[in-house]
């Protein structure tokens, strides 16, 4: 069986700065892997390389067994991404945005797909509103709809619940759990929310200064480092290395 996402000995160097250093990991089908680490540890660079926005200096990224550098555009059909740092066109309505991205990803039976997303993500109440006029929580749900419009086999989430109120954050997490079980999607989740990582991820990669410094299930890491939760593990690992 092919592995949806496999990273082999991946490095990225900007001029003289090594942003990511020889990292390797896999995300299997129906698995959520978390990437944790302080700001600037290489999480976004790693995601950027997986999405083909960055060219790796060394190493390989395999999507369903095929190297992304060899078939970048074709493999982008298998991926999608959500981040609070990127937005959908603000002047279009929610429906227009979903139609645009549905067409960009060549989604079959787009109308049915949009109806499904509207129902699952509770978009119906503002489907014809201008995206720029929505609240953060509503925008987040629209971005989430865009990120799964093509039923990606690998979904990359960069702080998907940042700046959301607790209720919306919980809704998004519940949706992701349900969606992942239903579609058996492989998810790579970069987050600073340790409770979220403990709840969603079956395995966690701890990064610092471009390298993976530890990995395991949240329970294993908590036990191994003698701490009560992932937040304490995070603080221990990052402070130890300062």
């Amino acid at each position: 069986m092919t592995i949806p996402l496999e990273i082999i000995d991946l490095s990225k160097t900007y001029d003289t700065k090594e942003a990511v250093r020889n990292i390797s990991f896999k995300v299997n089908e129906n698995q959520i892997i978390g990437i944790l680490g302080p700001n600037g540890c290489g999480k976004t660079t790693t995601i950027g390389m997986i999405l083909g926005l960055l060219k790796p200096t060394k190493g390989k990224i395999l999507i369903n067994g095929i190297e992304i550098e060899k078939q970048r555009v074709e493999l982008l059909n298998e991926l999608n991404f959500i981040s609070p740092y990127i937005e959908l066109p603000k002047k279009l309505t929610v429906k227009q945005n979903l139609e645009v991205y549905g067409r960009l990803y060549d989604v079959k039976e787009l109308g049915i797909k949009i109806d499904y997303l509207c129902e699952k993500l509770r978009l119906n109440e503002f489907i014809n509103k201008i995206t720029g006029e929505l609240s953060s929580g509503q925008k987040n749900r629209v971005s989430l709809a865009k990120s799964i419009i093509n039923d990606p086999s690998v979904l990359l989430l960069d702080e998907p619940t940042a700046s959301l109120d607790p209720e919306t954050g919980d809704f998004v997490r519940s949706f992701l759990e349900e969606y992942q079980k239903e579609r058996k999607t492989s998810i790579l989740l970069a987050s600073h929310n340790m409770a979220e990582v403990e709840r969603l991820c079956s395995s966690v990669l701890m990064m610092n200064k471009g390298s993976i410094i530890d990995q395991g299930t949240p329970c294993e890491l908590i036990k191994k480092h003698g701490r009560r939760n992932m937040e304490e593990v995070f603080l221990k690992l990052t402070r130890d290395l300062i």
Partner: protein
Amino acid sequence: MYGLFLRHFYLIKSSLPRVLDLIYWPTIQIILWGFISKFFSIYSDYYNNTLGIILTCAILYDILFRSSISFNMLFLEEIWSRNFTNLFIAPLKLKEIIISLIFTALIRTLIGLVPAIILTSPLFGVSILKLGFPLFILFLSLYIFGITLGLFVSSGLMRYGPSFENIAWSSLFLLAPLGCIYYPIEILPEFFQVIAKGLPLVYIFDETRNILINGLVDYENIKQACLLNLVYLIFGIGLFYLSFLRARIKGTLINMGE
């Protein structure tokens, strides 16, 4: 008050592009109108139909201006709306991005220009349609060159990020004096003539004046313009691809709009 002055002073002092931007517009304006004035003072009897020729040339120049700005705007809007990353992670080939921008820019250009073209007839008694069939070729040449300039600027935006934005706005005005829109190439100093001959604009506007004044079509001018357009277009497309590759190496795509 002094603090606010210092805030802007530090900003200007630390950025050479900002200083150049401040100098740029007045200089270009002075040069452009200087050449126009010189032309009229030397050859005041050159035109029988000065208004018609100047307006026709102004409209044609606007085709270039609108097509290039439209192309740049489409790219800039993705940056301003922070949608750039979404676009570049969609399964789109670069050639598909270029083609869709070219067609969208054409629509934007026509929306901006058609009303202006229609208005010149009742307001000034000037109709660009007097150029006849060559108008189509001149339009196409200007449109292609506008798109090519758009490709150059978009390449810069992709490679250097939003800081390249000012150049996006000013690139066309740099070509205005050298493009010989309102006067023949002979008005330019010799050194500038050498540069101007490398631009399709000189041949396009020379031919426009030739048609309007003499009622004849010199296909040599049109051929020269098309040939130069083709060279620049191929170079522009190559540069776009190269900039995308460099942006992937340098990491500009991932931080765009942040």
